[in-house]
């Protein structure tokens, strides 16, 4: 039997969560709503929660008559490569920061922190100047390179904190059992860090997927445009084609959703429970 007071508290608690979720998801809902609203109803119906007539025309147009599939492919290549390269580098780096003491560690960490302090806008000109003679502007690999460089420091700190959470005893036990340090890392520590790696992967993927500033500045041709840059092409000098833009936005959400569905099982923590006294 739940006492009325506790029931009231529980209800209030749930209502607060519900309110927050509604608030957070409302823009998403609006995105979907506009993407299925026919152009003739967009301005004529006023503010309505759902159009009187829904259509998939915008989606069809975006997929068949725009460069969106190309942008989409470019974004995929850039984001997936960035996510995997960053996760690999930050896992190795994070492990080193977590487990080893070495000369210059303090300064390396300091420098890594320093890279996080500048507003990116300040760095665009010098980066453009550097990449241009190397032929890396207007190319996907140039973009990947820049994204990796800017994501590695933060991801390394993230991974370091995951490694810090795994008791040192485990790899010591493995080394006494007959493993080299690298084998202990690969067979014992890495499987336990999967949630951390999934989180890093997801974090970097989304960051690269939605990055606009560098993509806009470093890429000028349609061939190498990523999808955030492509979205801007729906804004012309005289009008904004909201319906198509939102349809493209909805489509762009799909890979991010699929990606998180794939890694969500690793995001759930608790894999290390039972390793040491718990």
């Amino acid at each position: 039997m739940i006492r009325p007071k506790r029931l009231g508290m529980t209800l209030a608690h749930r209502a607060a969560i519900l309110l927050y979720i509604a608030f957070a998801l409302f823009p998403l809902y609006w995105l979907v709503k506009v993407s299925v609203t026919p152009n003739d109803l967009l301005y004529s119906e006023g503010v309505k929660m759902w159009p009187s007539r829904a259509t998939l025309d915008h989606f069809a147009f975006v997929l068949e008559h725009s460069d969106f599939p190309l942008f989409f492919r470019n974004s995929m290549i850039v984001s997936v490569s960035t996510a995997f390269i960053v996760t690999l580098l930050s896992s190795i780096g994070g492990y080193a920061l977590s487990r080893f003491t070495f000369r210059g560690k303090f300064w390396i960490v300091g420098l890594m922190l320093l890279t996080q302090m500048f507003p990116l806008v300040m760095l665009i000109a010098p980066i453009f100047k550097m990449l241009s003679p190397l032929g890396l502007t207007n190319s996907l690999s140039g973009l990947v390179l820049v994204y990796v460089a800017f994501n590695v420091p933060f991801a390394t700190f993230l991974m370091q904190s995951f490694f810090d959470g795994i008791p040192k005893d485990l790899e010591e036990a493995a080394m006494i059992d007959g493993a080299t340090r690298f084998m202990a890392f690969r067979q014992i520590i890495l499987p336990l860090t999967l949630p951390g790696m999934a989180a890093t992967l997801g974090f970097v993927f989304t960051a690269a997927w939605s990055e606009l500033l560098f993509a806009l500045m470093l890429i000028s041709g349609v061939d190498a445009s990523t999808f955030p840059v492509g979205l801007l092409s729906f804004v012309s000098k005289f009008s904004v084609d909201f319906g198509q833009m939102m349809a493209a936005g909805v489509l762009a959400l799909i890979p991010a959703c699929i990606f998180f569905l794939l890694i969500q099982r690793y995001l759930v923590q608790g894999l290390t429970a039972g390793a040491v006294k718990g």
Partner: protein
Amino acid sequence: MASIDITDVRKAYGSTKILHGVDLTIQDGEFVVLVGPSGCGKSTLLRMIAGLEDISSGEIRIGGRVVNDLDPKDRDIAMVFQSYALYPHMTVADNMSYSLRLRKTAKEKIAAAISGAATKLSLTPLMERRPKALSGGQRQRVAMGRAIVRSPKAFLFDEPLSNLDARLREHMRGEIKKLHQDLGATSIYVTHDQIEAMTLADRIVAMNAGLVQQVGSPLDLYDRPANLFVAGFMGSPAMNMFEGTYRNANGGTVELAQGVVVPLAGPAPTADGTKVTLGIRPEHVLVGKTGLEGIQALISLVEPTGFGTILHASAFGEDVKAFSLERGVAVRGDTVSVSFPVDRIHLFDTATGSRIG
């Protein structure tokens, strides 16, 4: 199985010295317990034997071979950690077979080894479970099983029972002792618990502040502690210690505070007037009715343990602890007489801390 020789082993982290030169020889098949308060360097020494810490100077040999620069995996030792350090993503069977799989042992041999260990430790019904589905005692047994499957040269135990509750600790203590009697393996066991040290060890190495204080059989350390540290560390309730002055007159006596004079069994090999510390274990203090020969004391606290009674008595400005197996010897506020049997008295030089005689 192998012997372990430790020669002048030192450890320093930068300018902080942890071990100041340890010499120790552990015989093949011996069970040696390193005991001491936390921070005394016992765990560091064990980890140096395991190869988990570098040796700053000195030499460690396992089975005659110098292992200073060998990786842990090449030393052929097994270790049980305080935290158990079970691999959480592996089943009990996989945890136990990991070392054998790394050595590419044949499948049939692995199966035989782990089923043998499982039987010995009654783990057979748990073999497919993950560590998180086990209780503390079961995890402890898996950690032991992981150590015994591959018959290493030596077993190292780093406070393996500290995380268990009192009852289970007592039980596992017995299991470890039995296991050692079965396997006859060279074992080094680190603990801060002097009961564990007393019950398990063939030989105890008492350590303090990075130095070995005394090496000997458990009863040796208990009956003839080499210095004040060992005297105070071994035994519970702890030994009574009173500072005084040694007098050669009357066949050797110690003058304590307030003019109390305690006779000794005979003259001690030290100069008249030396500042000494007189030690006597609580169970050796005799408590009797007033009027009898002895020192007048006032009972200030009575602690019944069920097994016996700990009496605290105030005499000559000190707190004298006495342990009696009998109940109802005295109640708080009683005036009693306490006396120290001459053959039970330990004498230490207060300045150096070492035993006299």
